[in-house]
């Protein structure tokens, strides 16, 4: 047991207690949490500062307005419904199209108006929100993800999670939905995590259910070696999010849209630690290095470059 302990220590793995005590509690001011916990506020903030996000079609705030849903989406064939205060991808409903007056979900199920309205009212009553407080439902643009990931995703939208520390990107991973994860992109729910070489934007090794894998468990396509387009631009976008909300230890989820390029999907004030498994390396060395920096470049693209530099310098 202590052998494992010291090995993890040497590998620079950050544990949950250390993440909370040394990074989240120290660098994330509590008063800033609502900026990221409320996806609606994040979206407004991002739009104001010109950061690309999926277009918002409408918001449903009270039970009475649930009936307006069909009105909101009448011009859109496909869309996504998500709770403003959701976490872990819960409560997100992706509609890919319509058939015979019903909505087709990404799982293939057909939903009636009634079923979809029930889902929205569940969101409003706070079923998916932290602490169960009443919530809002966002209806937004469904990302048409980049064909790059077509072969390595099973339904759902793969996203790129980047940890940004003091505005400097530290590590990234692609989260690929699988059948097991039910289209969701959370590793503990069964999604595949793939590390990214921060310097080149190329996917490295993949981890599924804590085991290293080579091929996607559902599609069988090789995962490593994929080159993510506009990589530096994507990192810059992640770095910009720090200016947006001011959280020192931030998780930025970005999706690659076929037409619109990188879009910021959501921000997270307590990003998980699985990114270390996906990248096959601990975060601590990098985090400590950045912690010692006295000055942080003001320009987001400079910070992105700095992050890439650090990543290379500490490569094992």
């Amino acid at each position: 047991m202590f052998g494992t302990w010291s090995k993890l220590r040497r590998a620079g793995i950050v544990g949950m207690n250390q993440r909370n005590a040394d990074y989240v509690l120290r660098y994330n001011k509590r008063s800033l949490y609502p900026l990221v916990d409320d996806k609606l506020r994040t979206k407004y903030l991002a739009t104001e500062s010109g950061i690309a996000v999926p277009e918002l079609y409408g918001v449903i705030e009270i039970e009475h307005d649930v009936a307006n849903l069909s009105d909101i989406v009448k011009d859109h064939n496909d869309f996504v419904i998500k709770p403003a205060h959701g976490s872990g991808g819960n409560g997100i409903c992706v509609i890919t199209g319509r058939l015979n007056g019903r909505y087709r979900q990404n799982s293939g199920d057909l939903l009636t108006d009634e079923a979809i309205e029930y889902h929205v009212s569940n969101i409003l009553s706070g079923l998916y929100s932290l602490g169960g407080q009443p919530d809002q439902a966002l209806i937004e643009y469904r990302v048409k993800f980049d064909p790059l990931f077509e072969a390595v995703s099973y339904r759902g939208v793969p996203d790129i999670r980047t940890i940004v520390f003091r505005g400097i990107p530290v590590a990234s991973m692609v989260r690929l939905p699988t059948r097991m994860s039910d289209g969701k992109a959370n590793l503990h729910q069964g999604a595949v995590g793939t590390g990214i070489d921060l310097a080149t934007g190329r996917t490295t090794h993949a981890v599924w259910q804590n085991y290293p894998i080579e091929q996607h468990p559902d599609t069988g396509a090789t995962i490593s070696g994929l080159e993510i387009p506009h990589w530096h631009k994507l990192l810059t976008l992640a770095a910009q999010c720090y200016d947006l909300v001011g959280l020192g230890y931030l998780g930025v989820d970005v999706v690659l849209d076929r037409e619109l390029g990188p879009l910021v999907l959501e921000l997270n004030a307590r990003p998980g630690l699985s990114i270390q498994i996906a990248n096959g390396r601990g975060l601590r060395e990098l985090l400590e290095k950045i912690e010692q920096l006295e000055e942080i470049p003001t320009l987001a693209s400079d910070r992105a470059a700095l992050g890439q530099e650090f990543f290379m310098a500490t490569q094992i």
Partner: protein
Amino acid sequence: MRQLHLLLLTLMLCATGLGLAYYKVTVIGLPLTASEQAEVWNIEARISFRAKPDSAIKVTLPLPSDPPGYSILDEDFVSANYGLAIEQDDFGRVALWAKRRAQGKQLLFYRAVLFKDEETIPKPVMPPVYPKVPEYPESLVPVIQGLLDKARQQSADTVSFSQRVIEQLNATTPAPELKLLLEHINRSHNLAKSLGWILAGARIPSQIIRGLRLQDSKEYTELEYFLQVYDGQQWRSLNIKDGREGLPSNFVVWQVNENKQFTIEGASEFSIQYSVARTLREIVNIAGSRSAEKGSHLMEFSLYSLPVHIQNVYKVLLMIPLGAFVVVLMRNLVGIKTFGTFMPVLIALAFRETELLWGLILFSLIVGLGLLLRAYVEQLKLLLVPRLASVLTMVVLLMAGVSVIMHKLGLEMGLSVALFPMVIMTMTIERMSLTWEEAGPIEAFKQVTGSLLVAVIGYLAMNIDELQYMFFVFPELLLVVLAIILLLGRYSGYRLTELWRFRAFARNRPS
């Protein structure tokens, strides 16, 4: 800086908690374990008499005050409608009962609870005034003179001198020359007093003490006499029958000297009776009374000053921090996932009432049935709060049903299901079914077993009687628990489950 602050704070908390507890143990004498009991003696003086018509009643009863070797833990007076006053001066204490008019048989009681206390500090002895030689009746002067002379020849000091005198007067066949003196003594009905009177002839200071031998279930009609003579340094007790020195070990002094007398006015057919009984008391109670006696107010503000039913509530409440401590350990050191942060503590509290095995069975039963019903309600597509309320209603009905069935089956422990916190059960069912849907049954079972595991460990910790007693008698020990929790709040090492989670790193890097 922050670390230092925390360190100082925890040190301060530990020092305060342990210091207070140490003070309570050593100075007040609180025992560290619950089982310690001590003997106490209940002494009762019962005065019965018949009131004379048309006359006021006044009763004076001498009371024990600071009997050497004993402390009075408690005393009370039972005297319906009598005016009661307690007077105390240098010579002792008396209770004065008074009533203007009474009819028929009357009873007055005085009760005291005594505790044998080796630690009572004997009062400093004031050297008495050496008595003048009394003026004996002329016929007795030569007799007494002869008695004293004989004793003086056969003795070395005050004590042996007095012993010789007592022996001579108590001899089975007294010397013929003493006959006159003995007759005189018999007339006064008070051997002790007479002895003092004779010893005064040799200018020996003496005093009479009266008291009781503490023997279980004994009754006495009068107090026993002992004579004390002053040997120049201290009072030495002598048996007035055989002259032996020393008081019996179980003798409690009720009265010193006869300045205070039992008197009664306006009554006939009076009698006084003393009875003694032995009982056991928890040392904690004794310590409380003793500290009050010593003038320490610490125990007055302890939990023991609360009414008993509130005390029982606090016995449980004071264990909750320990449960919370277990949760901290299990979550931050081990890394077990639970439904809700302190839900396991509440379940553990319920286990205390139901006992462990039954608690687990009933919990699984209710949650299992609740999940089935919840799955059914799910189809109705209800809003969240009405759905929770409906599940709650069903949980209550389920609990009632389980109680009735268990009762019919003769399984009385099954009735304790009513003690489960049903709101917590409802939330558990709701959260479990959500986790089930969103993360699969495996995750749901993982979390429910995690919760139960933490609850069981919490229950086992909170159910240690010794700890329960300790926290109740020394609530300041919770400051130590607080200090440890605060320290754990800055623990940033790995959790036990993380060693498993990140095991890939340990495997790939042989060292």
